[in-house]
Every structure is written in C-alpha cells, then in structure tokens.
C-alpha cells in the first residue's frame, strides 16, 4: 500500500559469522501508517532491535525490501542520500550517556544538524533550538551545557529534541526509556505522548517492557527468534493474547500482587 509510511516486505536479516550464520530477522512484513504508534516487543534475540535498525538504515536487509511511501530505501551511501534518510527517520537510543558526544555542547549539537537540514521557515537557528529544548521540557540555558551536566532523564529528553531537529516523519525509540528510573521514565513517557498529540509524528517503539508499550502504542508486534508471533491492536493483544508465547510474556511481568509462575517440576 502506498498510503503507508513504512512498509516491510518479507524482510530477513542474516548475520554471517565463522561459527555459523545467525538469522536475526526471519521473513517479517508489516506496515506503519503516518502518525501511527506501533510497538515491537520481544526479549533478547527476538530481532526487534535489528528490525528497527534496518528501518533506520543502519543495517541492510539480506532479503526483502523496506519502502518509504512506496519507494524502496537502502542504507545511505552518499551524503545526499543520508540527508534524505535523516529527514524520513530518526532514532532515540537506549543509552542516554553514550548517544551524545561528551565534548560537544548541546546547542552546538543542534546547530550542527540545522546546518545540514535547515530550520522551519521563519525561525533562526537560536529560535528553533530554543523551541526544541522547551518542547522536550528543557530550558534554553541548557544549550550551553555539556551532556555530563544533565541527568539521565534530561539527556534522553535532549536525545528526543535532537531526533526532532531534522523534522522527521518517523521516530524510532529503541528501548529509549529502559535505562531510566521509574519516576523519570514516567516523565519521558508523558513527553512522548504529548509530542504525538502536537505533531503528526509516527512512532516505532521497541521495548521489552509490555506495560510501557501499552501506554504509548496503538498497535503491537510480538517478536520471538526473528519472527512475528502475534500482531494487533494493543488492547486486544494484551487483554486477549492468542499466541502461547504472548501469554507467557504477559504472565512474567511483575505487576501488583504478582507472584512468579510456579516452576514446572520434572
């Protein structure tokens, strides 16, 4: 469908290694509509991060195609292609410490991006920087700070601001709140929710945390060992799971009053 923002068609990713090939992603297909918020949940080795990285253009597919508005995309080789890709998809990474250059002031980081992608009509570099910072709940004076002066939550908010700077259509969040304290995580989730209401941004939310995904996503894909095990509207999948694996995942999440499922005795 050309109406979809991103479309994956039978995408497979195989990592070759001397010890044997590893099928990280195996024949995955789905569509993401403009403005939609889709979650991919799974445990380690499920292939959720690899899928997200292929959509972002950080990895190339081994088989299958990924299209943006019907046009096939590949990992960008030239500067021009990279610029175009940056305007389509941006990503917020898991590590709030490592994803920022520790030697660069936040304002300079944003300015570097504006230099490539420009600013929305009528706004100067400083104005747009201030707008972005305020939108994610930071102050204008933070532009003069280095990443080490900010807390983990603030760094992650800045990472969101930086991701918004090229004005992309899709924001991929790869375990973006997993490293944050619970109270800080709640702040960032609220920010992401508000942002979506203000803009037409689509989200691809990769996480191992089902509860978080419930708060942010409309639809969810459950992945295991590289394949999509179940897919559907978030309420449906979490309240009435069809796949046994999905049920097992839901049962394993500590919730109020939870006890670990009894071990199966041999």
């Amino acid at each position: 469908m050309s109406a979809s923002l991103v479309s994956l068609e039978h995408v497979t990713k195989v990592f070759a290694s001397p010890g044997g090939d590893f099928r990280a992603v195996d024949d995955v297909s789905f569509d993401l509509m403009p403005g939609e918020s889709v979650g991919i949940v799974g445990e380690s080795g499920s292939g959720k991060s690899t899928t997200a990285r292929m959509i972002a253009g950080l990895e190339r597919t081994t088989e299958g195609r990924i299209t943006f508005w019907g046009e096939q995309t590949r990992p960008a080789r030239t500067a021009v292609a990279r610029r175009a890709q940056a305007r389509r998809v941006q990503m917020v990474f898991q590590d709030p410490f490592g994803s920022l250059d520790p030697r660069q002031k936040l304002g300079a980081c944003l300015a570097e991006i504006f230099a490539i992608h420009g600013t929305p009509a009528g706004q100067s570099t400083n104005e747009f920087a201030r707008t972005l910072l305020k939108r994610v709940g930071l102050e204008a004076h933070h532009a003069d700070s280095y990443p080490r002066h900010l807390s983990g939550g603030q760094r992650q908010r800045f990472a969101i601001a930086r991701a918004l700077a090229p004005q992309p259509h899709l924001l991929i969040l790869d375990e973006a709140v997993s490293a944050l304290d619970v109270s800080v995580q709640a702040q960032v989730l609220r920010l992401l929710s508000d942002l979506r209401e203000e803009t037409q941004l689509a989200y691809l939310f990769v996480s191992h945390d089902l509860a978080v995904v419930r708060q942010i996503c409309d639809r969810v894909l459950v992945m295991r060992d590289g394949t999509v095990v179940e897919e559907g509207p978030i309420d449906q999948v979490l309240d009435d799971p069809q796949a046994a694996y999905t049920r097992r995942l839901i049962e394993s999440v500590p919730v109020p009053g939870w006890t670990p499922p009894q071990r199966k005795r041999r």
Partner: protein
Amino acid sequence: MTHTEDPRPPLLSIRGLHVRNRIGRELVPVLSGVDLDVRPGEAVGVVGESGSGKSMTLRAVMGQLPKGFSSKGSIEFDGEDVLSMRPSHLARFRSRRVGMIYQDPRAHINPLWTIGDFLTEAVVADRRLSRREARDRAGRLLEEVGFRDPVRQMKQYPGQLSGGLLQRVMIVAALMPEPQLLLADEPTTALDVTVQAEVMSIFGDVIRAHDVGLLFVTHDLDLAAATTDRLVVMYAGRIIEAGPARSVTSTPTHPYTSALLAARPSLTRRELPASIPGVPTLASSVHDRCAFADRCRFVEPECVESEPRLRPVGDDSVSACVRTHEIRNRLERIAQ
C-alpha cells in the same frame, strides 16, 4: 510461621550506618543513618531508584566499600561487627557465611574454568569439603535450581550457558558454603522477563528450602513484593519506609512510596503513569529537612523544620513521614 514469631535473634543487624565519600577535600554523604534487620530465613527487599543508596548498603554489609569511602555505625552479623573486622576475618566471613549474587554473572565468573571447578574451588580450598563431597553438593544444588543433567553440565564453560542459566549457577555458588545470609544486587535486572520470572521462582524455593536470610536489592517494587517478606524503601541515602511487603505496596505510608507506585506504567490499562516532578535527590543535598520535601505534594511547614525520624506505624511498619497518619488514605488511593 511469620517471621515476627521466629524466636531466633536477627541474623543481620545494621544500626546507624552512615557512609561518606571523600571527594577532594569534602566528605560527601552517601548513606545517612540506615537501620535494618534480617532475621534467619527472612527475605528483605531493599527498593529504591538511582542514588537511593541501596547498592551501597549491600556493599557495606559485604565490607566492600569502594576506596575513599568511610563508614560509621555498626553492621552486626551473628554478634560480630563487619565494619571493624580484620581483613583475614572479613575474607572468611565473605567466603563462608555470606553469599553474594551480582547483577552481571559473566563479570564474576572465570570464563576459563568449567562450571564444576568454579563451584567447588572455593569450598575445597577452604578445606571444608573434599573434592568429591564438593562435587556432590554442587550436583545436588544444580539439580535444585533446575539443571537436568548436572554431572554433564558441570563440565561446561560459562560461555556455553545463557544469562539465565549462569545466574542460576551463581545462586548455587553462593549456596555452596552453606551461608546463613544471601545478598542479591539486582540479580535479575539484566535478564529477559520470562527468564527473570523463572529465576525469581527458584530464588523463592531455594531460600525457603535452605532457611537462609536474603537481602534483595532492586528498583522493581512488584518484583520485590513477590519474593520478600519485608520491604524497605530507600531514598536519598536513607530509609523512608519499611514494613511487610504486601502492605507497603498496597497501603504505603510515605508519599514517595506512594508516588513510586503510581509512576509504574500499567499493564492492564492505558493510563499514563503519574510522574514525580524533579529528579531523585542525592544524600548529599539533604539538610535538616525531609529528603522528599521538594518533590512532595503533601509538604507542609513541619516537613522542612527538621529531618523526620522513622516512626512506627501500625504493628509492623515504620515511616519517615510526619504526616503519615493524616494522609494515609490518600496515599493508598494514589498508589492504585
């Protein structure tokens, strides 16, 4: 039998623990006055966010404070004070009577030794068991934690096991010298959620079967409530609430606990969790007032007059909130 009826004296008794870090010329407080008991066979959970001091408390119990950190107070284990133990004595304490399980098993296991060697080396070197006896015990414990074929699997190397299996090996390693107390620092945080559930289930079975005490540090309130009898909530280097696990999570007595409970995203409803304004306070920023006062919605002038002490609430709980009796019902409602 509930543990308040257990007539044996506490296994571990921390009183007035203060830990400070020397930065430059200043002594920066990291823990401010921690009091904590673990009775034999009791599982106590210590819950908090970053900077709460929960991990530092465990390190103090092990006598493993980082360089430059000084401590005051007492940590009594079976009548002896860990903080004033001689190094040789401390080494024996750590290898025989207390077992520690860390967050990342791979960082604490020698990749070049087989599992069997890893498990038996310490007890054999200590001359407490012969090699054959040690292997037998290791085999039995491995079976208890779910290894189907311990004899064969003991010949494997750590690199061949998954994180979940390796963490089970760590539990066995901690149990080998038949310790009286287990310390666990976020033992399941690095594991997948289904694996976490299995390992937590094993934990529960094991501590009951071996009648060991457990001090379990985590940031996950629901996880702690599932496996522990008592919960201790830490904030800014101090304890702000303690009580039976189920009641702390259902009827909290401190606004921070209540807010922390409310900040959890729900698995069953689409309702954005309420956030706590600001960032977690550090122990070094607290002076003569309630540590949570700046972020608390129930703050009153009395909260900033002086630092509140832990006061008893009901039979079994303590709380550092001066207003706890007034606001009890509202705290419960927020936490739902």
